[in-house]
């Protein structure tokens, strides 16, 4: 490689910018996809009870009334909540599963919790309940779900244990999960529920999806804005490096013209030079971003993009490439760069070759 310093610096900065932009794209897109996958099996409508606009446990008996609304296939009271562990400074998600719940006294824990507490199957693990008293459970299983994003900080337990742990009375639930077959009935059913129980808040799955999209979109947008500053700096840098042909380069072009190169030959050479630099940077940047996001769990972005919990899930996103996005990135970086290298070369290449003799 000629002009090692200049081309090396250019390649480095170029690769860095591609790496950052591609990482943000890969990451936010994979997260959105992950969320969509997770929500695929979520209930169509969730009914929460509110009191003065704040969340409140819902009476289990309301489920029977709601279940009679036309179009509702089933209603299931759900029990779930959060638990802050002041010793490990982490939040856990407690859930009573609909099926295959552990027997009383046993729990299933997410891999994040098992990792942090150094616990494995059949170990006894203790948590402080709502009254401050510790309760011990035997670990039945360590969850290794496909989406670690969701299962990392999860504790699955029996209804009996949950009520004992949280102090939630037997006639109340966290919320009600409804299954509805016809998507066109969602809005009508939600309306009927609020008429029936004005202090409830029905949440549609499509709304949750939209919120996820908005949150991840907003966050990745935030990152994009920050890094667009970096991209702008790169553009200025590239423009300066690529367009400002040095006296030596101008002389070279003059020599090549003098020894029989046409303007088009020089442009072709410069085009390939620019293409090699930008394609190399693009490919290396994309590969690094892929490794960063899908192999090493995005250590650079996790604090910004992965939520507020103290217990960051050590999850690996399912590799997913959107060729539309990659091509957009390509056309926004490689093409402009190649053009910026061609224009000044063209200006230098149209000079008379006899300048090298003067």
């Amino acid at each position, binding site marked *: 490689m*000629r*002009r090692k310093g200049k081309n090396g610096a250019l390649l480095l900065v170029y690769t860095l910018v591609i790496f950052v932009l591609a990482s943000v794209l890969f990451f936010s897109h994979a997260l959105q996809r992950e969320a969509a996958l997770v929500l695929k099996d979520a209930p169509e409508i969730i009914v929460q009870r509110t009191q003065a606009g704040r969340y409140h446990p819902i009476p289990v008996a309301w489920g029977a009334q709601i279940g009679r609304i036309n179009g509702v296939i089933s209603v299931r009271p759900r029990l779930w909540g959060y638990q802050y562990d002041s010793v490990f400074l982490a939040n856990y998600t407690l859930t009573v599963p609909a099926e295959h719940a552990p027997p009383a006294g046993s729990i299933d824990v997410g891999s994040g919790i098992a990792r942090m507490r150094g616990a494995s199957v059949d170990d006894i693990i203790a948590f402080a309940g709502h009254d401050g008293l510790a309760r011990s459970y035997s670990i039945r299983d360590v969850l290794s779900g496909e989406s670690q994003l969701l299962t990392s900080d999860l504790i699955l337990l029996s209804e009996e244990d949950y009520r004992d742990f949280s102090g939630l009375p037997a006639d109340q639930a966290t919320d009600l999960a409804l299954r509805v077959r016809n998507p066109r009935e969602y809005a009508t059913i939600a309306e009927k529920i609020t008429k029936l129980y004005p202090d409830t808040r029905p949440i549609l799955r499509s709304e949750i999806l939209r919120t996820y999209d908005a949150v991840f979109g907003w966050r990745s947008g935030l990152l994009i804005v920050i890094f667009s500053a970096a991209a702008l700096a790169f553009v200025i840098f590239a423009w300066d490096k690529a367009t400002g042909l040095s006296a*030596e380069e101008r*002389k*070279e072009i003059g*020599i*090549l*013209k*003098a*020894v*029989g*190169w*046409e*303007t088009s*030959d020089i442009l072709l050479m410069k085009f390939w030079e620019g293409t090699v630099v930008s394609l190399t940077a693009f490919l290396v940047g994309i590969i690094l971003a892929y490794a960063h996001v899908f192999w090493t769990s995005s250590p650079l972005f996790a604090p910004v993009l992965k939520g507020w919990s103290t217990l960051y899930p050590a999850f690996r996103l399912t590799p997913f490439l959107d060729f539309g996005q990659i091509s957009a990135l390509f056309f926004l970086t490689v093409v402009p760069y190649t053009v910026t290298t061609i224009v000044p070369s063209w200006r230098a290449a149209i000079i*008379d*070759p*006899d300048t*090298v*003799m*003067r």
Partner: protein
Amino acid sequence: MISARDISKVFNAGRPSEFTALNGVSLDLRLHETTVLKGPSGSGKTTLLALMGCMSRPSTGRIFLKDREITSLPERFLTEVRRSTFGFVFQQFNLIKGISALENVMAPAYPTGEKFSLLRARALASLEMFNLGKRADAKVEWLSGGEAQRVAIARALINNPAVIIADEPTAHLDTRLAHEFIGIMAQLKARGTTIILASHDPIVYDSDLADRVVEMRDGQVIGAGNRA
């Protein structure tokens, strides 16, 4: 025959810095001969070489190469004529830094589309001819003055030109290297190559190499004569 008919060359025309480098020059140069353009700096030698070598066009007048008028050719055709007919040796050799001697020699032939392996073999043979085979892969900035000069000549010869044009070729050479250059040119001349040199070095214009010396001053030819 290369003929110049009443050619003038004006730089920066219409500007305060307007400068007339050549003024009404007419000249006939015979093929297979060596012609030396002699004269002080600023006399117009280099400009005349550039015009005859199809590197630029005259402001007025016409140039003929073997009876073909080349002054009005479009750039593409002019480049083609330049590439196929002329080989240039520049005052400071003008080798391209950062690439090897071999790549420098091959450079003028890249646009011809010749097969790379054949071109490389020819360029190597050319370097061998000048005892530079072992320096083929050396970067040009590592070469000595004499080696750089020979690489420049090898480059000028890569497209088998009928005419070698050299501008002040001995200006940066010591006496020994200047004589070496004259020797190489003599060999080329013996093979029938036409040589046009611009020089104000007596080693060049007083050498046996020169068949004809054209004396220039202030952009005009003030004398031309065949040497005995």
